[in-house]
């Protein structure tokens, strides 16, 4: 994911081509066979793996949930019913809203926790310490996401490490049910997605010239001013990418709520999963669309807030 922030716009030598000159230009560059392979594989990816599946999902979302023998029959007409449920079903609506603010909370927490680490890694740490920190950061991420979250289950369970500790220290007289609310799920998510915040930030900060910081320092700027005036403006694209990735991962997370959650901390992705378990693909598709739109809205909000454009960000 860090790639998204690290690849700088601007190409070595890009040929400007009108659409009608595209084909001659392709074959000039890659030969006829090469052009066919290139366009063929991109077309397969673009249509067969991205656009058509998305369109089919939209189609499903606007059709009613029918028994098999009625599909394609007179009842199979486009309807908004699957979307309206989100507003009429109070339980679903509440979970949807909770998923949004909880994901925002996870994102903000991750940003606050990761900013100092990214800055330290990019501008302070050198040599062995730098590689040690890097390895320390990467090791948890080479371990499966599920197992990472499972580790917190061991800590937060009724007979888990934290409760044992609290009981031993006489802080608590009975085991505390840490998994009752949303707390455990949010903690697990911040833990699970930290790297997706650290690396975009790190990438953006790394390209900042150290001399700028020193110059500001020599001119009497305080540390707070240096960050506010120099570091943060410079790493806006990194902040935007980190927030987009973290929010997207949190809002679409299914492992964390499945493993750390209790019935009271249901997540929107779990409603979608339940829909598919009950074979109500239409409802599931509609909610998946809602989640897609939510994530797109978040992406555009971030671009607007940090005043970066999509080109800057996706590269």
């Amino acid at each position: 994911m860090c790639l998204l922030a690290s690849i700088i716009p601007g190409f070595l030598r890009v040929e400007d081509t009108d659409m009608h000159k595209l084909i001659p230009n392709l074959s000039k560059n890659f030969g006829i066979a090469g052009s066919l392979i290139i366009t063929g594989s991109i077309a397969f990816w673009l249509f067969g793996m991205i656009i058509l599946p998305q369109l089919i999902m939209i189609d499903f979302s606007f059709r009613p949930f029918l028994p098999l023998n009625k599909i394609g029959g007179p009842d199979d007409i486009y309807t908004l019913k699957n979307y309206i449920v989100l507003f009429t079903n109070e339980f679903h609506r509440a979970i949807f809203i909770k998923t949004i603010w909880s994901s925002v909370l996870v994102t903000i927490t991750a940003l606050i926790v990761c900013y100092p680490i990214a800055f330290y890694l990019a501008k302070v740490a050198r040599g062995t310490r730098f590689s040690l920190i890097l390895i320390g950061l990467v090791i948890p991420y080479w371990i499966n996401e599920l197992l990472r979250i499972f580790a917190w289950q061991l800590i937060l369970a009724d007979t888990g490490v934290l409760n044992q500790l609290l009981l031993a220290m006489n802080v608590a007289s009975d085991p505390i049910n840490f998994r009752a609310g949303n707390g455990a799920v949010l903690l697990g998510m911040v833990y699970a997605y930290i790297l997706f915040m650290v690396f975009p930030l790190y990438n953006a900060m790394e390209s900042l010239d150290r001399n700028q910081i020193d110059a500001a320092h020599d001119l009497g700027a305080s540390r707070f001013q240096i960050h506010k005036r120099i570091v943060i403006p410079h790493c806006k694209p990194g902040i935007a990418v980190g927030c987009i990735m973290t929010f997207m991962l949190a809002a679409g997370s299914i492992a964390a709520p499945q493993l750390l959650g209790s019935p009271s901390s249901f997540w929107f992705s779990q409603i979608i999963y339940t829909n598919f378990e009950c074979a109500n693909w239409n409802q599931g598709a509609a909610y998946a669309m809602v989640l897609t739109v939510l994530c797109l809205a978040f992406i555009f909000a971030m671009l607007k807030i940090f005043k970066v454009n999509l080109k800057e960000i996706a590269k």
Partner: protein
Amino acid sequence: MRPSSVVLRVVTGGYLILFFIYLLMPLVFMSLVAFNSSTVPQVSPWQGFTLKWFGVLLADNQMWGSLINSFIVAFFVVIISVPIGLSASLLLTRLQFKYRDGLYAVLVSPLLLPGIIIGISTFLFWDRAFQLSGGLFTTIMAQASFISGYSMLLIMARSQRFDRIQEDAAFDLGATHWQVFYKITLPFLSPALISAAALAFMQSFDNYNTTLFAIGFEQTLPIYIGSKLRSFISPAMNALSFIFILFTLTGAVIYETLRRRELRNNSR
């Protein structure tokens, strides 16, 4: 040293230590549990050292089946997504055309959307269009749709630094497109292709969200882990985690040794 910079060092050091305790402590607990003979996965009470959970894990046929599936899926995802990523990066770095930015945005969009959506849309597409229900094939397609994006970005990063004068020279000397690609472009891009393949393999091997919706009744290793952790939790899962951690540490040590050796060789 000014007192304020002493305070800063202490605060920074303290924060770093706290951060890494937060990051690594859970893994330490998880590993300890793998060796506790208590049947409930917990650190205390410590009921004696045992290796039996590794035996339980290795005797589980379901685990082996899912592991094999994971390798199959990851293999095909690499085979599909690296060439697609290469194609897209060649097109996008070399030609400028009207819809280039739009195409680029659509191609990276699967990286910016939740994995479950990729899984759902792929599953529905193959079911509707080809009456193919969820399984390893749909999983491969779903994973490749976003992993190709990673490959593309990785390869693009390198191909932007490619000096095309070499290619022009080869063309002037009468080389064919294929020869130029095979003898000049490919060798230059090969480090990026290798890292793209490694990243694709790891992404696929680790994937849970997308796979969960695309796989139907089959199981890959993460799906197996998920079903185990959601039902009856046994310390065998801790044994599995420990094996993962061991592999990771070995990988990190090998990587660091290689890097240092390279640094030494370069400085000579």
